[in-house]
């Protein structure tokens, strides 16, 4: 139930059994089924989720109800709306399960407790935030500067399994292109 989380912590900050146990007791194990929500827009995001199994994605909706995909997350990843988590403002994001998921949730109160009491956790979280910042900047750069083809190649390089696990229209939305353009890019790439 905690295998990937422990690996994620140990990879970044070597910790003792005791410290890991203390961390474990502050998480909420939660199963989510496909199409169920971890967060819906309008709520304050009160928790961060670590994915032990499954996949989720976050998105905003436009006035016509269309989805604009922000992020995909798979096993070993964290997903949340950190903006809402930090500011306590209502979230504009939806976070939905793409597959049946096994999650470990950490709410605001428990997060604060661990930050104050477990030094390794603070280091771990700092590294996560650094990574999240880098990923965010890459995402912005991609949106501003790269061609659709470059963005797609970059995505597939990063997450090899994404093509098999995520519907094409969601990948297209993430890249900011139409499903037709994505289909054309894939055909071009396959014919090379």
């Amino acid at each position: 139930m905690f295998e990937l989380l422990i690996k994620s912590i140990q990879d970044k900050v070597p910790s003792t059994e005791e410290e890991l146990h203390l961390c474990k007791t502050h998480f909420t194990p939660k199963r989510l089924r496909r199409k169920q929500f971890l967060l819906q827009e309008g709520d304050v995001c009160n928790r961060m989720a670590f994915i032990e199994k499954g996949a989720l994605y976050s998105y905003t909706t436009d006035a016509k109800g269309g989805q604009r995909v922000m992020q995909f997350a798979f096993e070993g990843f964290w997903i949340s709306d950190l903006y809402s988590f930090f500011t306590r403002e209502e979230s504009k994001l939806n976070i939905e399960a793409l597959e049946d998921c096994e999650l470990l949730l950490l709410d605001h109160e428990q997060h604060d407790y661990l930050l104050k009491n477990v030094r390794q956790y603070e280091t771990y979280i700092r590294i996560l935030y650094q990574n999240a910042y880098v990923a965010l900047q890459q995402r912005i750069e991609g949106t501003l500067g790269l061609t659709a083809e470059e963005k797609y190649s970059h995505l597939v390089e990063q997450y090899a399994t994404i093509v098999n696990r995520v519907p094409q229209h969601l990948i297209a939305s993430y890249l900011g292109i139409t499903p037709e353009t994505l289909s054309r890019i894939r055909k071009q790439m396959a014919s090379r």
Partner: protein
Amino acid sequence: MQTKRTIAILGASGNMGSAIAKALAKGNDRLLLISKEEEKLEALKTVITNEYPLADIEGMTCAMHGSWEADIIILATPYEAQTDVAEKIREVASQKIVISIANPLNATYDALVTNPETSAAEELQALLPHSKVVKAFNTTYAANFAQTVIDGKQADAFIAGNNESALETTAELVKTTGFNPIIAGKLSVSRTLEAMQLLLIQLTMKYKYNWLAGWKILHQ
């Protein structure tokens, strides 16, 4: 709250479990009705769906799997089963609200079987050290859920627990079921709440209240 919560009711085929399930079906939460008595569960689901066609309910037989999916767990099982159930759900109930409704009565309904310095709820908290145990729905009879106003007065339902946000969430649930929620205090107040139900049961039998009776605090 936009994001749908999942509430697992363990022992949903029992008198109290099914009464709580029917009452919570009025709300917006997803309900997992958990019991080994599959036929009774099916019957309960039919009754709920007929009354509330939009209710999001599902029957399950495994307490552990149901509790794993849940955000809130209601233990509507008898006091005698508490240790066994706690053992099954301990790992997946970590940091979740676990509502204890049990009254630790003896077989003749004239005494509590717990030591006076503890309560069923505090024992449950000791069994589930990383969960947020809350006492609720223990001073109400199953029949009261269908009729929360008795003799023109809305029955009170008392809540006790050590975690503030868990108490608030439970108070909202109690409100959904139609009772007037009163946060009574820390989890140790459960000793009083469990003894109150013992008294109510004794009075019900003595004065023949027909199992429709409740507590109401009168105040200015």
